[in-house]
């Protein structure tokens, strides 16, 4: 019997991405068992890891973590390619796109709280857009925009604040 091994060369960054993704997946799974008053109303605590990675590493690392988290969480929960997964992916992509532009804001005036609020707004905007186009093509979902925006602001602030404390605690940069 011949032993065949496939070796993939991994860099330190790969390991760091894997570790942070694992934390993000864990947070997502914890969040998924929390009861929710309305579908889609979630704290989105996994975003803390994405923001943390943007500050500690760079945007590409954060992007990897976010995308891996969306795919892995949906596979674990058995939602892969279901509407829940598509919503999560759309929200994730749009919030990454927003972060890509938001990190160009002067860091002298904008803290992680700003980035968190912006990305959580982008997340819910992407999801509502997909719901409007694909899942519920009726104008009545516009009534939900105020509620979801208020929730996005609240959890965006909380997550941003946690990220800020975390970065300060680790004394990064």
């Amino acid at each position: 019997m011949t032993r065949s091994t496939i070796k993939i060369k991994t860099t330190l960054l790969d390991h760091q991405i894997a570790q942070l993704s694992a934390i993000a997946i864990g947070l997502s799974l914890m969040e998924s068992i929390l009861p929710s008053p309305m579908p889609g109303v979630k704290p989105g605590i996994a975003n803390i890891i994405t923001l943390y990675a943007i500050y500690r590493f760079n945007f590409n690392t954060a992007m990897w973590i976010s995308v891996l988290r969306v795919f892995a969480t949906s596979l674990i929960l058995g939602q892969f390619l279901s509407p829940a997964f598509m919503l999560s992916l759309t929200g994730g992509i749009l919030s990454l796109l927003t972060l890509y532009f938001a990190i160009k804001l002067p860091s002298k005036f904008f803290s992680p709280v700003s980035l968190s609020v912006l990305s959580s707004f982008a997340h819910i905007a992407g999801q509502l857009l997909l719901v409007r186009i694909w899942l519920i093509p009726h104008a009545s979902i516009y009534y939900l925009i105020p509620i979801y925006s208020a929730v996005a602001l609240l959890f965006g602030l909380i997550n941003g604040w946690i990220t800020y404390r975390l970065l300060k605690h680790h004394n990064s940069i």
Partner: protein
Amino acid sequence: MSTLRKKIVLKLHTKFFIGDGLIILISLIFIVCTFKTFWHFETGSVVQVNFQGNTYGNFSLFQDKKINLIGKEGESIIEIKEGRARFKSAPCKNQYCVQQGWIHLTGQMLICIPNEVSIEILGKSKTYDSLNY
């Protein structure tokens, strides 16, 4: 490859962030605006009756009228009175449409799925069939 990537250094400052305040303020204004735009209800003037996937007709709410529709399950009776509309009776088992009572605000809707009948209140903001107006 690394030369192509523009490096963005993010720094954490420990002072009051004027940008955060700005973003929070804009968000709050946005939320208040969306509340005002989307949660603004007005008294409707027309009721649209949908029957078996088509618009059966638009009727003014300022009249006393009873509309009888015979669908797959039986007869649904829609009543219009004093600027309001309701399902007076329905042949379905659950009677959800009847129990929801009167509706009069724009955008409100009553749906009877078994009998394929739905009614919706329309206002000035929504376009309606000019033939029935």
